[in-house]
């Protein structure tokens, strides 16, 4: 039996107040297995009674070494690992990875593939926000919202299964396009979803937006000012809840986002309630984008025909010698990318998701780094939660919408 040792302050003396060292305040361990930490997150709380004096987040429990592992895989094979980073946003991770590879090797994507990417990325945003609304309402003890949200999320996952065969880890978006064209049932499935979702968002709002208990738990909690939010590198709804209009889809449009008409919802309060309102409004905007993209979904190929980088269709392999050679080369040694480094970013449901991708001229990424939004958004937790109650801390963790797979990589 190993001895159970007390929580010792050892290396953390510089992070706690003098009162903690004198024993006036209490150090309390929260997590890593706690229902409200949204994953494996450990927090060391310094408490004065019920009031939070300081929070020391301890992350890394889900560190899987994805960046190191990707360095030993070819560009096509490494993509599979990108799904597993932010498991609420696998299609968005695929998208940013593919955009970086395409920028590195200068590969064009046909318009139909771009429109499909946008539709799926926006559906993914809605599904991620649905999980967020459900679970963070659960954190402040609103049980039923969770059940309704997961009902609609199921419908989105069914659409993903329809197009890719997988509900979550799809790897559907590939460098140069998408894996294959969407099936004929796709349009009807998405339109059916678009028909019901606006009224369903109204339902969630009816449960929460004017609910006095919910307002009590969220208004004025976890405030952060606009200037501070920018300086802390916050992105996504957590930043827009503080009134800063920064959205990568407008800042540096990708995949044809510039053709769609949508707004960036903003709130100026910077508290938990503002972030909730922003995310609800974002879902409505995402519905608008999907609607527009689906209405003008162009016909045509869904993959680049540059077979140096994109595998040729199966039907050609039996008849074309060149196609066979390309197929063989691509799946054995992969393609070589030119020596250089690129940085690519997309707007994930949590904020700016960036990829730094460097090639040494070979078929494997020399260095790949994922700039994940949750990492910065979590870092600000001590700033937001000082002076609040422990119960409010739970609401604040929920409101910054972290995914620990995204933090730890």
């Amino acid at each position, binding site marked *: 039996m190993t001895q159970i040792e007390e929580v010792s302050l050892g290396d953390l003396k510089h992070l706690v107040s003098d009162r903690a060292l004198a024993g006036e305040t209490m150090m309390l361990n929260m997590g890593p297995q706690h229902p409200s930490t949204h994953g494996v997150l450990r927090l060391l709380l310094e408490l004065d009674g019920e009031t939070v004096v300081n929070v020391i987040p301890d992350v890394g429990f889900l560190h899987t070494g994805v960046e190191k592992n990707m360095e030993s895989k070819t560009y096509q094979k490494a993509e599979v690992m990108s799904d597993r980073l932010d498991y609420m946003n696998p299609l968005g991770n695929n998208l940013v990875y593919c955009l970086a590879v395409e920028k590195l090797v200068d590969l064009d994507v046909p318009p139909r593939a771009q429109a499909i990417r946008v539709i799926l990325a926006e559906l993914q945003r809605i599904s991620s926000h649905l999980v967020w609304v459900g679970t963070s309402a659960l954190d402040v003890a609103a049980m039923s919202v969770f059940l309704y949200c997961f009902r609609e999320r199921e419908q989105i996952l069914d659409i993903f299964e329809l197009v890719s065969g997988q509900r979550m880890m799809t790897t559907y978006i590939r460098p140069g396009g998408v894996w294959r064209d969407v099936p004929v049932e796709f349009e009807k499935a998405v339109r059916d979803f678009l028909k019901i979702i606006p009224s369903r968002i109204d339902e969630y709002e009816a449960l929460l937006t004017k609910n006095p208990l919910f307002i009590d738990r969220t208004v004025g909690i976890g405030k952060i000012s606009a200037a501070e939010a920018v300086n802390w590198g916050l992105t996504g709804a957590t930043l827009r809840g503080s009134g800063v209009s920064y959205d990568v889809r407008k800042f540096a449009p990708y995949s044809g986002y510039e053709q769609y008409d949508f707004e960036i919802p903003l709130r100026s309060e910077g508290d938990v309630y503002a972030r909730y309102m922003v995310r609800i409004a974002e879902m409505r905007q995402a519905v608008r984008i999907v609607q527009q993209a689906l209405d003008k979904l162009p016909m045509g190929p869904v993959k680049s025909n540059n077979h140096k980088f994109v595998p040729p269709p199966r039907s050609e392999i039996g008849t074309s010698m060149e196609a066979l050679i390309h197929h063989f080369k691509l799946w054995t040694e992969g393609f070589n990318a030119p020596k250089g480094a690129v940085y690519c970013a997309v707007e994930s449901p949590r904020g700016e998701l*960036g990829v730094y991708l460097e090639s040494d001229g070979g078929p494997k990424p020399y260095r790949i780094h994922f700039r994940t939004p949750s990492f910065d958004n979590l870092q600000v937790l001590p700033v937001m939660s000082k002076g609040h109650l422990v119960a409010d801390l739970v609401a604040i963790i929920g409101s910054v919408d972290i995914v620990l797979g995204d933090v730890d990589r």
Partner: protein
Amino acid sequence: MNEALAAIIEKLVERFAGQTIEFAGETSVILPVDKIVAAAQVLHDEFGFDMLAAITAVDYWPAESPRFHLFYRFNSLPNGIALNVRVPIPGLEPAAPTLEGIYKNANWREREVYDMFGIKFTGHSDLRRILMPQDWEGHPLRKDYPLGYEEPQYSFNFDEIDARKPHAGEKPPASRGAQP
């Protein structure tokens, strides 16, 4: 490239003895390590780069010297532009000054670089490992750090490998004390 960005890059190169490299339509500025804090201060105050989007590093061992490159990305939200900055760092006792005083989120981002590459950030308020356990040895993303694997256990070598594995009930290695 954006004209405003080109003008900023030109001024930066001139003032801080920098160089530029161009790839895939993007220009990156290479700055010497002793100028990075001053340059970041100018970027923040004068040119409106109010957000530090990313810090990461690359290891070029054994091919190149200096061994490491730090990569910074700055966003300017009011002007709608972004800038890449690279800083070469020699491999012996690699160190760079911290940007924590200018961009607060550099705190965790630099801790991650320290954890993964062993680059020390001088003046950092809390330079501990962040993703790996505190008692971990080595810096995983360095190129001389092996990926590591587990030897497959077949019928012919089952007993041999089994004997080497740690089993439940045994004492943990002495180095793994309780972490605060």
